[in-house]
């Protein structure tokens, strides 16, 4: 009896305020879509970092014979300079940051170059002497690039130090900004959602004042009186959050996996599985929002 009664009360409430209910659903839908997008963007960044940071290294390019760099004034790097640089990288203050160092000779670089650009007309014009020999350094912690760069930068015989991670920084910056944008919009929409849920519950409570008045009079418990209103808000918000999950799922499936995934294939993309990881949090967020708004409203409008 209880459950059935509460359910029918909820049904009446939702239908009576249909337009308000729909607007609550839509606002939670949009706001949580933004929240979810922000989360997915961060997951995307995480995936790229995981995938790429394992591969990237710091390259210390040594002077070739025809370099215009100041530190290469003496022409091609000498064995002495090379030993010097090697010693600097082996020094105890740098050692803990370095996982592995290997030397790539001009010949090796040339071979790799030829392999990578096989069939290009300008590749055949390159000679071994156009190549740099280099130290390739794998860092224990890629964030500590500066420590390693400092000891070799500007030394005689070093043409340039390059952190391959730098190449990605710009991309990550763009993605981070996008996350902030989505997060900001989400925050604004969430405020709107809370206000709207509050108003909806208030309207609902006011339109049923006669009922709640009688309920109080005949001794219905506070919980029993307030539950239908709370559930009304929670149900509307939950539907909104499910729509948001559905929207994100479709977006990832068709935009990312089917479109981006086939046209730009070398990037590890977020998948619908990631959407499902985010989903419970979105639904929980919707329920918490609704609960907070109803507690605030109901304590004022259906006092015993």
């Amino acid at each position, binding site marked *: 009896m209880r459950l059935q009664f509460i359910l029918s009360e909820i049904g009446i409430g939702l239908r009576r305020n249909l337009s308000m209910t729909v607007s609550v659903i839509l606002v939670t839908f949009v706001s949580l879509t933004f929240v979810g997008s922000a989360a997915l963007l961060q997951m995307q960044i995480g995936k790229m970092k995981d995938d790429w940071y394992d591969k990237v290294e710091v390259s210390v390019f040594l002077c070739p014979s025809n370099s215009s760099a100041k530190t290469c004034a003496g022409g091609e790097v000498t064995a002495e300079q090379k030993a010097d640089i090697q010693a600097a990288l082996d020094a105890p203050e740098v050692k803990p940051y370095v996982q592995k160092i290997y030397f790539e000779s001009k010949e090796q670089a040339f071979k790799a170059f030829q392999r990578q650009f096989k069939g290009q007309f300008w590749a055949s014009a390159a000679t071994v002497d156009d190549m740099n020999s280099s130290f390739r350094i794998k860092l224990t912690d890629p964030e500590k690039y500066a420590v390693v760069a400092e000891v070799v930068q500007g030394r005689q015989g070093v043409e340039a130090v390059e952190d391959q991670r730098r190449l990605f920084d710009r991309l990550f910056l763009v993605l981070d900004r996008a996350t902030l944008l989505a997060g900001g919009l989400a925050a604004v929409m969430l405020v709107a959602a809370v206000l709207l849920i509050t108003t909806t519950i208030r309207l609902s409570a006011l339109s049923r004042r006669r009922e709640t008045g*009688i309920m109080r009079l*005949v001794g219905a418990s*506070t919980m029993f009186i307030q539950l239908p209103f709370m559930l009304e808000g929670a149900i509307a918000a939950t539907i909104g959050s499910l729509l948001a999950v559905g929207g994100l799922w479709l977006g990832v499936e068709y935009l990312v996996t089917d479109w981006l995934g086939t046209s730009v294939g070398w990037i590890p993309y977020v998948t619908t599985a990631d959407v499902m990881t985010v989903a419970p949090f979105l639904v929980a967020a919707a329920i918490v929002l609704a609960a907070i708004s109803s507690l605030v409203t109901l304590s004022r409008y259906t006092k015993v």
Partner: protein
Amino acid sequence: MIRFENVTKVYARGARPALDRVSLDVERGEFVFLVGSSGSGKSTFLRLVLREERASAGRVFVAGKELGSLSSWKVPQLRRQIGAVFQDFRLLPNKTVFENVAFALQVIGKPRHHIYTTVPDVLEMVGLAGKEKRRPHELSGGEQQRVAIARAFVNRPPILLCDEPTGNLDPTTSLGIMRLLDRINRTGTTVVMATHDDEIVDQMRKRVVELSTGSMVRDQSRGVYGSDR
């Protein structure tokens, strides 16, 4: 059943008290008329019993409980022991007679079979058998008040409070309502009725408590409406 000990109720700070040091004892099974002009404190008295208000001073006991120290989550339990009837009936217009009465049981979580056996009984008792499917606007004022009484009494509360239940009804209809309240009183229910209706009070010859600007000025068993008669 109901005991007031030096109860004072002040609504706004500095205002004249709505009730001023009222002491009163209503025994189980009594029928008490609460009379007095508008603003004399009758409604405040009933609201204090229902614990819709708290006394500013003094103590109120209802069904063995001191209401001042009753925590708010126990208030619903208290109200289940009190039926209340009002001048304006307070029925739900979109529910049938049956549903209106059943509502009182539904919202305190009574099982369905209990509702389906109790509600017809009480409707029969108040004389509305056969009108279960009507809506309030299809009924006369007297019948609507009978629905309200059925709703107040369906849970068999030991106390029934009536706030001018005949205020909107003509004398003949009022008499029918009074017969009904008398019958309910005979089942052992304590009835407290606030009223302006002198004819009824004079006819019934029950205990009369008169309030005047918040003070109790008369408490008379088998009394009449006007103190000068």
